[in-house]
């Protein structure tokens, strides 16, 4: 029997015109942590979804423990011992931990029996959960533990973790990765999808790097350096904004553009999402928001953007604030409308009488030109553009539409390196032109790369620790900042 637990050879996968994977390969050995590294959009998740039977490859082969396999669905992959923890949790919020872990089983369902099995598994792995708790009542870290237990509950020997640290604080992330190391000590295999070099170098035995759907580097972690991995991930496309952190230059404070005073927000269920938040953003500065998901950063951004009513407190913002929401497909664009009609959304609520289609068309053509949107014309449907070009249009529309303030939420999510650089450049240019900018990213590196000030939201409260990794990390956890 070979020592290769999972082998993916020359996998190609196309989605219509887009080639997501182009002959990608990966070999994960038994008893190791294997990091799968690459930029957003490099094809990491697609490759692992193929390994887990969620997608079928157009060509290429899969072998588990040396035996060739073909998966029609995750059920087939689970049957041969593969488990996957997804980046976006695949838990049922309204159900209990026990029900979630039991999901996919057969025969009669006895909660007590499941409960005992979970407690035993918890004991063995050191991942503590309460089997009878409902998922929606659990914090992100606990949900992650449930995901992992779920994956391990069925004799899983190969565990795929897709960006497992995205929703965790730096401390929680380290604990989780150490846990992954322990899990492989008795012959299992963990595959860690990540775009963080440091995590890969520190915790993995082997590393595979994907770029544009192809394997461009693979080898022992001990033989890799940050430089070789960066070169492999980015190829020749390294951009200036990417690695160059902005130096704080808040010399003379300009006028306050966005200001919140003692703002509280309660959601429909009566839960307080923001508590007595006071925050000012000035013209010509970028304020970064750092937070673990679900701590009220979502509400804070929407209040600043004038998209959410507050329960109490004082909000002073311009009449029009540009807003780049993280879910571009749902909140920023109407996919079946033309680019022109999407631009017409600007001011749609107050427009009276007849649509000035000629003027809106002209405005759209200017945006297409000035923001380098690759589209044949302004009557093209938004759906037919790539994610990067869609986002460039949104960024252009929101910046030009407001000219005084911009709020951006995960603005580079799902974009490739070049599109990310273009979006960053536009946000910096807006700042230079005197706009007040607020940016939130679940990637702390992105926040630090763009923002001069960083405020942290934890449990609905806002603090402003010193602008460095360690103290921001502590503040995100709600720990006192030294």
């Amino acid at each position, binding site marked *: 029997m070979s020592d290769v637990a999972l082998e993916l050879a020359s996998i190609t996968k196309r989605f219509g*015109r887009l080639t997501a994977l182009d002959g990608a390969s990966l070999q994960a050995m038994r008893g190791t942590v294997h990091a799968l590294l690459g930029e957003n959009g490099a094809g990491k998740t697609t490759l692992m979804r193929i390994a887990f039977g969620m997608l079928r490859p157009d060509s290429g082969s899969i072998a588990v423990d040396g035996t060739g396999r073909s998966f029609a669905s995750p059920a087939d992959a689970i049957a041969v011992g593969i488990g996957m923890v997804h980046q976006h949790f695949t838990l049922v919020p309204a159900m209990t931990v026990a029900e979630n872990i039991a999901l996919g089983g057969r025969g009669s369902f006895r909660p007590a029996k499941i409960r005992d099995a979970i407690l035993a598994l918890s004991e063995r792995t050191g991942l503590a959960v309460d089997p009878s708790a409902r998922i929606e009542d659990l914090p992100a870290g606990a949900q992650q533990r449930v995901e992992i237990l779920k994956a391990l509950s069925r004799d899983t020997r190969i565990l795929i973790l897709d960006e497992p640290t995205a929703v965790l604080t730096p401390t929680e992330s380290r604990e989780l990765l150490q846990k992954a190391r322990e899990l492989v000590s008795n012959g299992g295999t963990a595959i860690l999808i990540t775009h963080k070099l440091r995590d890969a170098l520190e915790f993995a035995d082997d590393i595979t790097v994907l770029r544009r759907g192809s394997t461009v580097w693979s080898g022992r972690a001990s033989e890799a350096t940050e430089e070789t991995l960066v070169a492999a991930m980015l190829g020749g496309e390294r951009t200036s904004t990417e690695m160059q952190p902005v130096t704080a230059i808040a010399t003379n404070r300009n006028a306050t553009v966005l200001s919140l005073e003692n703002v509280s927000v309660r959601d429909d269920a009566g839960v307080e999402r923001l508590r007595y938040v006071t925050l000012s953003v000035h013209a010509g500065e970028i304020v970064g928001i750092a937070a673990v998901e679900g701590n009220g950063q979502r509400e804070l951004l929407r209040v600043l953007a004038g998209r959410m009513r507050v329960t109490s407190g004082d909000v002073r913002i311009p009449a029009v604030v540009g807003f780049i929401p993280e879910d571009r497909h749902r*909140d920023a664009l*109407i996919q079946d409308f033309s680019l022109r009609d999407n631009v017409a959304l600007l001011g*749609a609520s107050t427009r009276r009488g007849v649509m000035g289609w000629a003027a809106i068309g002209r405005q759209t053509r200017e945006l297409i030109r000035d923001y380098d949107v690759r589209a044949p014309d302004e009557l093209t449907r938004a759906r037919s553009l790539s994610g990067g070009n869609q986002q460039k249009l949104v960024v252009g529309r929101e910046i030009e539409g407001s000219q005084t303030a911009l709020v951006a939420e995960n603005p580079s999510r799902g974009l490739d390196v070049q599109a990310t650089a273009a979006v960053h450049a536009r946000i910096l240019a807006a700042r230079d032109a005197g706009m007040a900018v607020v940016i939130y990213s679940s990637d702390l590196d992105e926040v630090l790369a763009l923002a001069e000030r960083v405020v942290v939201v934890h449990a609905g409260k806002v603090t402003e620790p010193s602008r460095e990794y360690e103290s921001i990390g502590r503040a995100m956890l709600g720990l006192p900042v030294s």
Partner: protein
Amino acid sequence: MTETMAFVVDMLVHATPLVITGLAVALAFRAGVWNIGADGQFIAGATAAAWVGVSVPAGIGWLALIIALVAGVIAGAIWAAIAAWLRSRFGVLEVISTIMLNFIATYGASFLVRGPLQEPTHVYPQTSGIVSGAHMPILLRGTRLHWGFVIAVALAVIAWWVMKYSATGFRVRASGVNPFAARSAGLIDVSRVTAFAFVASGAIAGMAGAIEVSGVTFALYENISPGYGYTAIAVALLAGLNPLGVIGTGILFGALETAAGTMQRNIGIPSTTASVIEAIVILAVIAVAQLRANRVTTSA
């Protein structure tokens, strides 16, 4: 009059309520409102128009027609507003509420024509005839074809223009196709816009009922609608929810119903076959649209 001519006249008379209710459905669907209640709104409009038509003094002449039409529009709007209010205030699915309101309207009309509004001899389940001032003028002398058809076409053109060129129409379309983006990127008050479209849809369906009473039946009967509101769904979907297209599909279904009526009289093919054809049309339209959409999604 030749047989073809008679068929064309019948077809256009049948098409009139279908075009107008088709517009009502198209408007609602465009706004993301599943108004399956055009039938009830039609009945409400017809009832109000008939009630006005039998109550106003004969001396006011053509004013009676205007009042009857306005009454029909208001009644249809109110009938839709109940469902719109239930949706916005209590989150009641409009699909269910509008269907319930269809039944309630049917029984309500049945009660009226057998009770308070029954003709004086109390023999037939219908109202007396409306005053002649409330009659819709005839378009083609010597036929049943009335001006209602012209109103239907004009309404379609107006609806098309409003959807395409007015700020209100844009808000309706944006709210219907993606309420999240309409709210977040367009700052549109989506629930207000959709409620407005819902009520407007009811008003249009109500007008169809009023026109039917003033142009065809001249009185309110039990079962005054043979299911126009349901046929309207096929009319609207086949037209791709485009108001100008509704003129064409409305006439097509008018022809279908005329032919079905003739066939039932002549060769005994049940008229219920028409609704089978309507259903097949709807299913065919969504199958084609879905197969096309699925192809686009997998290539994106």
